[in-house]
């Protein structure tokens, strides 16, 4: 129900209808951007899509910060895993 999916803004917001084209993994749908009128949206931005509406603009820096932090957790394990990755020849 609370299903929300990240999508990339690939079209201009149409003035009257608040609609803009959003791309999810190569799939496109017109999404209502009215709830993000405060944000300064432009093509290439990512938004969270829920029942045809964009609920929030996704922050790339926050995403990176979390990923960095996650990679930092249990550094020992990560080192081990990196070593493993290098040995992967598939």
């Amino acid at each position, binding site marked *: 129900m609370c*299903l929300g*999916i990240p999508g990339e803004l690939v079209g201009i917001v149409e003035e009257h209808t608040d609609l803009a084209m959003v791309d*999810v*993994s*190569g*799939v*496109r*749908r*017109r999404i209502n951007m009215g709830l993000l009128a405060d944000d300064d949206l432009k093509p290439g931005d990512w938004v969270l*899509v829920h029942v*045809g509406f964009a609920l929030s603009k996704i922050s790339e820096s926050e995403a990176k910060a979390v990923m960095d932090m996650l990679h930092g957790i249990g550094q020992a394990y990560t080192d081990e895993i990196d070593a493993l990755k290098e040995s992967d020849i598939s």
Partner: protein
Amino acid sequence: MTTEKQVLDRIERIRRRRPVVREERITLAHGSGGKATRNLIDAIFLEAFRNPLLAPLEDGATLALGSSRAVFTTDAFVVSPLFFPGGDIGDLAVNGTVNDLAVCGARPLYLSAGFILEEGFPIGDLRRIVASMAAAAEMAGVSIVTGDTKVVQRGKADGCYVTTAGVGVVDRPATLSISAAQPGDAVIVSGPIGEHGVAIMLARGELGIEADTLSDTAPLNGLVADLLDTLPTQVRTLRDATRGGVATVLNEVATASGVTVVMDEESVPVRPEVTGVCELLGIDPLYVACEGRLVAVVDGEHAERAVDIMRSHPAGAEAAIIGWVGEDPPGLVLLRTAFGGTRIVDMLVGDPLPRIC
């Protein structure tokens, strides 16, 4: 006090009971290919028609006709829309029946076609459908040798329904069966899954979603012949993954063979657009229909060879091993998720998806 294990065991026992149909009316769930469909078939059709040829619920029945062995099958096609990216109801109706014959180990030869046309249906559209059927039959090497046409009042159909039946001969001493899977076997799929179902959903236009997905409808008899020519006894089970998708086929294998099927999510081929549509709609591609994808259960020792054979046929260019068969717990399909976790993959409970075949 009852333990979790006791509860779960009791549930499994109940699940193995003969199903009953409690509903008073047919709902869309009965056509979904999932549990409700299966219950309807078991409780109403199998019960009334009871005979040893129907009982195994293979994709077709294997018959003795004089001194020959033949396979006989039928499918009704009610797809909406009739024309969709990658195909139409015509080639679907031919390929669907060709594939059901092929997966029973038969060489498809003859098809029948029963048309139910709605008053007002454009004859131009009928010509297109019939031309598709002719082309698909030609491609699969089968002949449409008998047929029937009925017309119903406007509002009593959706343009055109086609029911095909097919007859093929069994040339080789195959032992293919839904109940033949054994621990140690590998599970192979002949290509990316879910494209047909997604193409149909989008073609209806109601979701407002655009993607370049084409239906995967295709005849599989050539691919199957290649496989069985080389691995006649090592191939245990073949199925085309139609309504209910790969997950449903594997549940049928697990139940009929009394084995566990373990899938490896990461190795299941899914095209990005199919993933995208499924994520947007909150559905699982494992349950989405294909109309030209083979699921094969093959002796584990020969799995790589089977994949090689498939890959050298155009219909199997992206074949992949997606899992294996284990012993316990019998009747279940398990999934190792890409994330590294595990879960059950159960029969679909009547998701009212649009009509896809």
